[in-house]
């Protein structure tokens, strides 16, 4: 059945709450409103306000209290309303949540999920379009997941909630209303592994989140020219599954990495470093990145070209293939 990603996330939360009464949700406006993106629609009505907690405004409070709840044996799922609003919670995430297991010498894990809508492309105002993933991926002790379609969203969120480690769960907000088939009974994928979305032998094209369908489109254009591009959905941004990418590059000799986040010290740079270290002699061309630029997200009328789109990805692929 074709389902929007937002509805798939809602179903995943509902199923997780049914399966384990220790799972509870905390966030701003997640009660009667269902969150500003409606991902928690109807859950407070069905599970009560003890389990779907409308929080005061205060992101540090959301994450800090989730840590306390986890210490008390609960499995809280936090909702941060927008990517740009996560920063007041950074202290709790970086100095507390990510380190508790280390500090307790492995005795205590904190099964906390922090859901964050991310990325641009929805015509939003400042702080409502951000790509903060590298901050989290750079922080030891966190897992970072980013689904690219409805089925992945359902599956990965369920796994994130069942996982004993803290998980930053990035929801590409321009994909919320993209529909796809969702089978709740499908076997769980390996959430640490990247996924080959479309096989090919001419070039490896890596993306995640909202850029996966864009990369697939670009691959379609190149296929019409007779060049089969392998599209890889990274899926997990920490840990990064470089093995799948290296294996692909050994076959294709070429790698293009696309992400919305700005370029410097981004996921793409990390992945490029790992691939060149492992597949140096198989590379036929320099590894290229197609990313947002090293500026804040621009005013939304400029986003169309600032964000990696099909044309910018094609340009990079052409450059790589010209070597």
């Amino acid at each position, binding site marked *: 059945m074709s389902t929007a990603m937002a509805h798939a996330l809602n179903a995943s939360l509902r199923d997780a709450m049914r399966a384990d009464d220790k799972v509870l949700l905390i966030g701003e406006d997640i009660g009667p409103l269902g969150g500003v993106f409606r991902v928690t629609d109807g859950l407070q009505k069905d599970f009560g306000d003890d389990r779907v907690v409308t*929080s005061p405004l205060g992101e540090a409070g959301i994450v800090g209290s989730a840590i306390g709840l986890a210490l008390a044996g609960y499995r809280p799922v936090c909702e941060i309303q927008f990517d740009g609003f996560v920063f007041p919670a950074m202290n*709790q995430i970086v100095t507390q949540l990510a380190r508790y297991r280390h500090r307790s*010498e492995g005795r205590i894990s904190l099964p906390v999920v922090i859901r964050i809508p991310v990325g641009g492309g929805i015509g939003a105002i400042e702080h409502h379009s951000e790509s903060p993933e590298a901050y989290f991926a750079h922080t030891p002790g966190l897992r970072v997941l980013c689904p690219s379609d409805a089925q992945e969203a359902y599956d990965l969120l369920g796994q994130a909630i069942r996982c004993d480690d803290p998980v930053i769960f990035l929801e590409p907000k321009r994909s919320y209303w993209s529909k796809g088939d969702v089978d709740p009974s499908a076997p769980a994928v390996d959430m640490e592994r990247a996924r080959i979305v479309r096989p090919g032998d001419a070039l490896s094209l890596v993306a995640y989140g909202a850029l996966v369908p864009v990369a697939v489109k670009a691959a379609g254009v190149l296929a019409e020219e007779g060049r089969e591009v392998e599209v890889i959905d990274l899926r997990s941004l920490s840990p990064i599954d470089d093995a799948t990418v290296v294996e692909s590059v050994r076959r294709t000799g070429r790698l293009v990495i696309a992400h919305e986040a700005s370029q410097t010290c981004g996921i793409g740079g990390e992945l490029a470093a790992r691939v060149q270290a492992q597949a140096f002699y198989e590379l036929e061309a320099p590894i290229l990145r197609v990313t947002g630029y090293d500026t804040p997200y621009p005013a939304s009328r400029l986003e169309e070209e600032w964000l990696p789109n099909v044309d910018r990805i094609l340009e990079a692929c052409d450059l790589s293939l010209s070597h």
Partner: protein
Amino acid sequence: MTSATPTTEPWSVLDAAGRLRQDDRVPFGADALDLRAAYRDMVLARRVDTEAIALQRQGELGLWPSMLGQEGAQVGAGSALRAQDVVFPTYREHAVAWCFGVDPVQLLGLFRGTTMGGWDPRERNFNLYTLVIGAQTLHAVGYAMGIVRDGDVGTGDPDRDRAVLVFLGDGALSEGETNEAFVWAAAQNLPVVFFCQNNQWAISAPFSVQSRVPAAERARGFGFPGVRVDGNDVIACHAVTQAALANARAGGGPTLIEAVTYRRNPHTTSDDDLRYRAGSENDEWATRDPIDRLRALLTGGDHSPQIDEAFLADLAREEEELAERLRGGCRALPVPAAGDPFLHSLGSMPRDLERQMNEHLAFVAAAEGDHS
């Protein structure tokens, strides 16, 4: 600079000369503070503190945050706890840890550089020291939310009802997270007691930098009671903490306790407090010492003595044994293996981290080979 002048006299029942004033807020019977035990706890906890300072001077510890002068506040609060209650400390609650049965040797590891924690928080519900100021106030709030959801509040069963006691200092009052914790605790009427030891100094910043009103007065603005108590009066500290915890366990919600005390030593062994405060201030607070006060009460005054020379001699012997155990225990703390940090960041080790660990272990092994 000087510390702020209190505008509200803190509540006290035991004066600096060891005279006890009758007050019906002091619990009696089974709920009364065992004064001899409190005296012993304060003396032994102080010995842990002085011994740790000595170990730092000998190079056995990198750093030690002394609690000298705060034993009254900490033992008063710590002895009001029940086993099912939960404590979230800062990094200076050595006497609370003592009261809750944490082995003091385990407090040393963090400062010796053998661990980031040192004990299993679930064994005694005494959480790990938190070094980021105020961060633990929100953990306490979350834990209290868990207690509410477990139904362990307001049942009337003395073995079931629980509360959270979270410690903070005067500096933490200015942190945003502490204020968020107050908002959450109030809005949800949570079973949490905030115990602020106002020791007058946040490293070099006097209390007047943090607040224009006594800390306890802030609570009313958040919607719960605040109590100002003489932090060097162990009997008063016990009384207010016991009342606040009982209220919290019964479902009455949070309380902010401001225990007015003084950090007699520098912030840590690395600090130089005479750069920012006068030594005379310390001398003045020394005359209000919590241990001296209780000893004056227990050894005489108008009443028959409750402790005698034999009690004090036994205690002195116990102190020496404790000090010896700390010195030996400190030096025997195990140094973690080179691979340990890699094991504890996530529940299962990602492949790239395993690669990094193996690289590191090979390097360490080779370096050891070179040296042998």
